[in-house]
């Protein structure tokens, strides 16, 4: 593995601005096989390949983003997430990552199940709609919540499901998905109490029970 050079270090510190990426970096074991669903331009994968020596693969729907990911040396294929998962054999990866995308999926449960078929473990990071700021925004404005984490107008938001930490816990409980670790984040800090109220982002490490 190459030592990170100056440009890379700068890039990593930029990347760590995304707190869920930092947690994912903590979770992923060195030299493992990782599939990132909705990987964008492959920043996370490139960083994991560089710092952890992982075998990094990605799925992304946008042609422009796929091009930039491939140009930076990450193996990404252009596909939507459902079709992207279907072709893989069972347990092909150590980790399948779904970072801040679950709330955009038409069929989130189906995606979770497929993630755990294709991967030994899933890492799911999602924005928590139960955060107090979201609640406050909705209570005071009476409109769809808008916060720094959810800056979109309701009509052009990519988010089609509005889930909270409680909702996700319910889902995994009901559908036999084991939570191995859970992290709650506000900005770059970890949240220890009242996560459903205080966490902006939740990161779960899940596997099949």
């Amino acid at each position, binding site marked *: 593995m190459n030592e990170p050079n100056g440009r890379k270090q700068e890039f990593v510190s930029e990347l760590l601005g995304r707190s869920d990426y930092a947690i994912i970096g903590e979770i992923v074991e060195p030299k493992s096989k990782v599939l990132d669903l909705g990987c964008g331009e492959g920043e996370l994968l490139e960083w994991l390949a560089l710092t952890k020596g992982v075998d990094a693969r990605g799925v992304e729907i946008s042609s422009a983003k796929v091009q930039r990911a491939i*140009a930076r040396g990450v193996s990404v294929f252009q596909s939507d997430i459902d079709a992207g998962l279907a072709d893989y054999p069972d347990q092909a990866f150590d980790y399948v990552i779904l970072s801040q995308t679950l709330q955009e999926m038409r069929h989130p449960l189906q995606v979770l199940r497929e993630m755990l078929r294709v991967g030994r473990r899933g890492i799911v990071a999602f924005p928590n709609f139960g955060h107090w700021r979201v609640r406050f925004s909705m209570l005071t404005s009476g409109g769809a919540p808008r916060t720094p984490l959810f800056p979109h107008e309701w009509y052009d938001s990519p988010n089609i499901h509005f889930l909270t930490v409680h909702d996700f816990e319910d889902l995994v409980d009901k559908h036999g998905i084991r939570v191995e670790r859970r992290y709650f984040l506000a900005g770059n800090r970890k949240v220890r109490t009242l996560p459903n109220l205080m966490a902006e982002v939740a990161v779960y490490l899940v596997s099949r029970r």
Partner: protein
Amino acid sequence: MIVTANTLRFDSLSLDSGATIAPVDVTYEAYGELNAARSNAILVLHAFSGDAHAAGISPETGQPGWWDNMIGPGKAFDTNKYFVICSNVLGGCRGTTGPASINPATGCPYGMSFPVITVGDMVRLQAMLVSALGVERLLAVTGGSMGGMQALEWAVAYPDRVVAVIPIASTTRHSAQQIAFNEVGRQAIMADPNWDAGNYYGKELPGRGLAVARMVGHITYMSDDSMREKFGRRLRGKETFGFDFEVDFEVENYLRYRGSQFVGRFDANSYLYITKAMDYFDLTNGQRSLAGAMEAVRARFLVISFSSDWLYPSYQSQELVRALRSRNCDVAYVELESNYGHDSFLVDVAEQSGLVRGFLASTFEKLA
């Protein structure tokens, strides 16, 4: 960069049909330097009507190579970094043994006595060439269209000899539509009385038939959009219709020009043999599934298709990508937006260059 072609002769080549060609010549060009570890060699494979002159300027014709925009110092296939080889395919007419070559048994050109060849045969000859050049394992094999088919054949036939494969605007097997267009071309040639069952060497060439075949080919290489942009309904050198069957439209003139130009540089029998090899090509090769045929494949892949390519549509590349994924192979895939149809891989190379450059660099790094 001025480049010259070289020719190597091998004693014989055994073919998939059971026949043997002896001896067999292969003409190639090479650019850049092979490194000490012999780990930087890239084999570029030409499409149907291409040849070994992939890059640089030919001293004979003064023409740039067919992929000169992709191969050279600082380009996607950077010859400052990589050693790039391109050879004329078996059955071709640009130096490598083909139907126009002299059959040593008779002292006359082979003509239709040339054995029917396959993409597998082409690749077997390339493997002999690569070995003779001192390269055991290729960093990459790549090509567009029929070049992509050869690259895929390499990955399956020589899994230990290729690190990476870049098939562009290609397929794992010809569809009925692709076979149909090839058959129209072949019939046009064989309907030309000058073709004379392939015995036209030293006589009048079956130029009309070959030109018509090429005209059809050119239509399939473009898109409706690119033809509208390039020609529209513009008239050629006139303000009104001629009310005869001379050239009226710009597009007619273009096709006639391309057709007649082709007759000067391509052998009609090579057209028959090479298109037949393309039509026979099927990577599954008796296996029940494409994934089954990929069992031994170890290489990483960069697969590229183009949005307006209706001759080798994206679904064919996607079929390949799906089979590779089901084998858990390392595969990157993207469909590039382009208006140029099948020709995109030759002419619309800005985005393609960025992809190839990054993919090759990371492949080379992982190797080191």
